[in-house]
């Protein structure tokens, strides 16, 4: 029997079936293998339903990330989208939709801005919000210890869950050992892996969430 997927978050033409509200996914793939682009497309797919979006840019400026988003077919709508960049005040803009924290190591600061922006969107009556984190690898690289990264990811996925949102966090498996990656995955409802097949095609596989295609799917 097929599930009633009304109200689920949809992914346009990507080979990912709709997921129930509150779901957070870890998207794992090599930095230069289209992983970031995939995650951005997963966020942009919300635009057809006028969903909100929050971007956390840890490894580049907010403006750069939003340019990447536009390149994947997204349109940064200031009425229902905002970004947090982590490069410090030197790149701080006057843009109210782009907030700055000092460094990717400032997980407390990122968390505070994130809560604040999320509340702000809810206050505007935007009930459906997609969150993207670019990238968990950067957060791990900057953090002195791993415990605060778990704390941060729990907080973020917890918010997504309780607010019936959708979250996608990018990680590069080549920069983390398998054990750390598997341990980080535990914080998420499921995981999307991305690879390039022998024929040079990009393929993805969804694990851990219900009613998804089996095995590797051509992108």
């Amino acid at each position, binding site marked *: 029997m097929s599930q009633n997927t009304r109200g689920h978050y949809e992914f346009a033409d990507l080979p990912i079936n709709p997921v129930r509200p509150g779901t957070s996914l870890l998207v794992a793939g090599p930095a230069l293998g289209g992983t970031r682009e995939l995650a951005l497309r997963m966020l942009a797919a919300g635009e057809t339903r006028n969903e909100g979006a929050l971007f956390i840019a840890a490894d580049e400026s907010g403006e750069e990330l939003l340019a990447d988003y536009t390149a994947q077919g997204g349109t940064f709508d200031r009425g229902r989208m905002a970004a947090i960049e982590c490069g410090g005040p030197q790149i701080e803009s006057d843009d109210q939709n782009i907030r700055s924290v000092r460094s990717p190591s400032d997980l407390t600061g990122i968390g505070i801005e994130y809560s604040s922006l999320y509340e702000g969107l809810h206050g505007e009556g935007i009930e459906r919000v997609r969150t993207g984190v670019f990238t968990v690898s950067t957060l791990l690289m900057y953090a002195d210890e791993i415990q*605060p990264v778990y704390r941060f990811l729990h907080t973020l996925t917890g918010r997504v869950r309780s607010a019936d949102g959708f979250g996608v966090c990018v990680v590069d498996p080549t920069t983390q050992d398998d054990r750390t990656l598997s341990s*980080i995955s535990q914080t998420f409802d499921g995981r999307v892996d991305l690879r390039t097949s022998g024929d040079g095609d990009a393929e993805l596989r969804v694990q851990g969430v219900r009613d998804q295609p089996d095995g590797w799917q051509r992108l």
Partner: protein
Amino acid sequence: MTAISVLVADADDEARGATASALEDAGMAVSEASAVEAARSELDSDIDCLVTEYAFPDGTGLDLLSELRSESPDTPCVLFTDAEPSDIDTTAFEDLVVEYLRKDGSDDRTRLRTRVDEVTTLRTQVGYPLPDDEDARLDAIAEYDVENLAVEETLDRLTELAARHFGTDRAFIGLVHEHDEEFVSCHGGTLAPLARENTMCTHAILEPEIMVVEDTQEDTRFEHNDALDRLDIRSYVGAPMRTEDGRAIGSFCLTHDEPRTYSEADREYLRLLADEAMEQLRLRRRLDDTEEHESR
């Protein structure tokens, strides 16, 4: 279930009173403090959540949380404040991670109630991965009242056998509770309970089989863990101990002060010891249940 206990710290008497009443109305047990210094003395009592303003005459809410976390790393915090995010100086507190909720005079205290409930019941500020079946797992541990099971000598024999067989510094059996790990038997020195975010068994109970860390310095999860340095732990192997329902209540572990490897045969041997320890717990519990039944 006991009420969620919350410490509300706010220098503004009126605001603090309103926050406290809102949380009490939701069935929470509330204590109050009007300054960082006063709140400090409340931190000793077991609180489940800290709700604090940011600015105080004698410090900030983050100063307070920092102290709380050093004693009790799992305790969540909601910064319930008049301050804008840009007014909050996180420079010395990058690792704390808090919930932030602005006092805006609307239904903010209703939202605060929901937030406090979420951070405590969903454990959204803990610094380690949680098993999917965490609630059921904790229920399972509660069924094994190990202290009163008179099983200590049996477990001590098993950990001694393990340490002798493997020639490691330590062999121990740890139960992974909600916030810390309790070492019910340890050969090679006693171990005081350790915060869950610092123990390796926290990770071992997530493994389907056995977790081997040949060198803690080569593993991102543990390389910066000071608690392990203090205990001279450089390598680790742990076999989860599961109930009949498959709940991992703890693990049977070995630690050593140097990197080392464990062969397939070693792992099988440890698996046998872990199964035997679990079987002992199960039998003692059954015995205990029977005695209790007969004495009625």
